[in-house]
């Protein structure tokens, strides 16, 4: 398959075949990650700038490891200490970076549409590592890759519940697109203050009560509750949130016996998910982290070798 995308901005830009192809490539890199020497020379001589204008530990580390395992040189730029703090515009920062001729820029930014903005202006590949509340395609791909290892290629007949702060979540937006494309049904559950507007147009069913929402589901994706939502008046306090929307073992009795639990991290134990459940045997949280490296290796590989992309 010829990879024709310069950038990875959202899941909706991809078709099902392309998603399957990313997974297939990720399988091979997953195998590399199991080797004692976890490095292949496919991106030797290429450089990746990790431009993280918003705090991130796991996504940035994951992309950094992914790049290094492919033998690319990775360079990190964060908001603190960068010229963004000195009032430089996003455009100027991006053009400055481009002048240093990287092959890809991995961007995390607080503004929805930031990756789109950069992609339109830069020659190099732009990989969206999360823009505002808009999209987080690599997270959705790793979530899909993780579930695929349990369910196989086709998610038809499976039901996934996304639970928590959906309004502010780029992960939820990207997950909905990916999961429905792979054939799963998606449910959402959150207090109305944490649901995005216009959800009637989304291909999801919304539940107000967690217990009903869990009935018969095959996987539950818990979202992190940002602690500042309480200050913004969107919920009374974390205690009440944990009581009404926090996931624990009691909810799983209604779910499918093989229900899987996922979380994009970092977890607030005892808030959106009980601590014991986060560590339970049906939790895929750490599988997600492992998948993340393989999927991001596939993403970097496909976008950075696109002129010559062929099956290795």
């Amino acid at each position, binding site marked *: 398959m010829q990879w024709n995308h310069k950038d990875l901005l959202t899941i909706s830009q991809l078709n099902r075949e392309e998603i399957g192809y990313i997974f297939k490539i990720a399988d091979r890199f997953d195998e590399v990650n199991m080797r004692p020497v976890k490095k292949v020379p496919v991106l030797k001589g290429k450089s990746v700038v990790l431009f993280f204008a918003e705090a991130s530990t796991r996504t940035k580390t994951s992309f950094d490891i992914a790049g290094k395992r492919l033998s690319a040189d990775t360079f990190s730029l964060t908001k603190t200490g960068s010229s963004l703090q000195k009032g430089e515009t*996003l455009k100027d920062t991006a053009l400055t970076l481009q002048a240093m001729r990287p092959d890809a820029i991995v961007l995390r930014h*607080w503004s*929805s549409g930031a990756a789109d903005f950069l992609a339109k202006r830069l020659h190099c590949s732009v990989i969206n590592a999360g823009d505002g509340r*808009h999209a987080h395609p690599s997270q959705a791909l790793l979530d899909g890759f993780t579930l695929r290892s349990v369910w196989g290629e086709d998610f038809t007949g499976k039901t996934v519940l996304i639970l928590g702060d959906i309004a502010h979540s780029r992960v939820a937006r990207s997950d909905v697109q990916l999961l429905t494309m792979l054939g799963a049904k998606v449910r959402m559950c959150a207090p109305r203050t944490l649901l995005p*507007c216009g959800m009637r147009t989304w291909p999801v069913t919304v539940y107000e009560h967690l217990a009903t929402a869990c009935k018969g589901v095959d996987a539950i994706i818990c979202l992190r509750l940002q602690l500042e939502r309480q200050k913004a008046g969107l919920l009374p306090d974390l205690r009440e949130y944990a009581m009404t929307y926090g996931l624990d073992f009691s909810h799983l009795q209604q779910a499918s016996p093989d229900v899987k639990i996922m979380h994009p991290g970092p977890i607030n134990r005892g808030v959106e998910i009980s601590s014991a459940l986060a560590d339970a045997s049906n939790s895929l949280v750490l599988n997600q982290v492992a998948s993340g490296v393989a999927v991001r290796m596939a993403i970097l590989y496909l976008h950075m070798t696109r002129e010559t992309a062929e099956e290795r």
Partner: protein
Amino acid sequence: MSAPEYIVRNVLWHNQAMDLLVDQGTIQGLVPVEQGKEITPQSHAKDGHGVWLFPSLIDAHVHLREPGQEYKETIASGLHAALGGGFGQVMCMANTDPVNDRAQITEYILDTALRAYPHGPRIRPVGALTKGLAGKELAPMAELAAVGCVALSNDGMPVGDNDLFRRAMEYASDLGLKIIDHCEDPALSGHGVMNEGVVSGRLGLKGSPTVAESLQVARDILLSEYLHIPIHLAHISCKESVDLILFAKEKGIQVTAETCAHYLLWDETMLEGYNTLAKVHPPLRTREDVLALRHAVQQGVIDILVTDHAPHADFEKETTLDEAPNGISGLDTALSLYASLVEKKVITQDDIVTRCALRPAEIFHLPVNTFTPGDRADFVLFDPKIRWEVTPSSLLSKGKNTPCMGMNLQGKVSAHYLEGKLVYSTDTK
């Protein structure tokens, strides 16, 4: 009657071909062509075949950025755009830097305008309602009125304090000055960058709900009724506000309202692809709101059309939607956009005359040319046949921030006369 100095023959007025007779800077008459052909002017006759005649228009809501933000627009560049757009009077809002909340600033604005364009367009400053637009203390309204402010407004910085707003209405009313209110509940609006709705939810953008506007519209209507003081509502953008204004007018409450071409033409889908040129406040709403506003303009529920001309520098709009400033540069394109609404049969040429000249003159007590003999010969010839492309260089304003950029528009001002003198034409630019 002596022969007029010159005649503009065959212009379209109320869908009829008329001859306009001008003498010594004033209107001598506007007569049917059969009558006009008997008259030989002293100087010359100009052929206006197929061209629409308008009085020089009034834009009751512009931002000219001077003093303080001359990199976005200067009074001179703004007035140049006004001339080319067909506007002979513009009411400039007070959110300059420093804010127009004292006589020196008003005088500076008037002097600068007079130096740049001694023959007009004329600038009609709108003074700040509160000091520094901070919404805390009343601005010195009597001082502002004395030097020539024609209205007061906290435009851009809506006043959340209802009691202060009430006192402002009362105090301004003693001075005979109307308040133009930017209707927005600041808390409800939050940091919304577009309309709250399906598109904002999908794009992951913070939305500003229509109720942030309509709630303040309701407040203003109720205060106006309670105090028996008229109020003018700025840039109405949604159906709920229209419903409230209709209710108020039917009750005889003294409320007038304006909207802009962009709310009559475009909806929130313009923001797709994170198009910062379509970021404006209040935001573009839904198709349903567009249709409600069109109906309101047809019915006169909305009294006047304004541009809310809000020029910005290119680099300011060349960023993410969160960071880009609100506003559309409107003076250059307004009349072409109104003409496109005539073409769509939403409004008529007469509506443009009423909503962009006669009615604003009535609301803000401004002079206007009604083509009655003796009126100042301030008029515009608009050629509906000219097709032009909106490019940075085709706009006279320094602000190139319009969603029209790159579009082809039909119809353009071909000549603008003030006091009978040709002050702008497409030939001379």
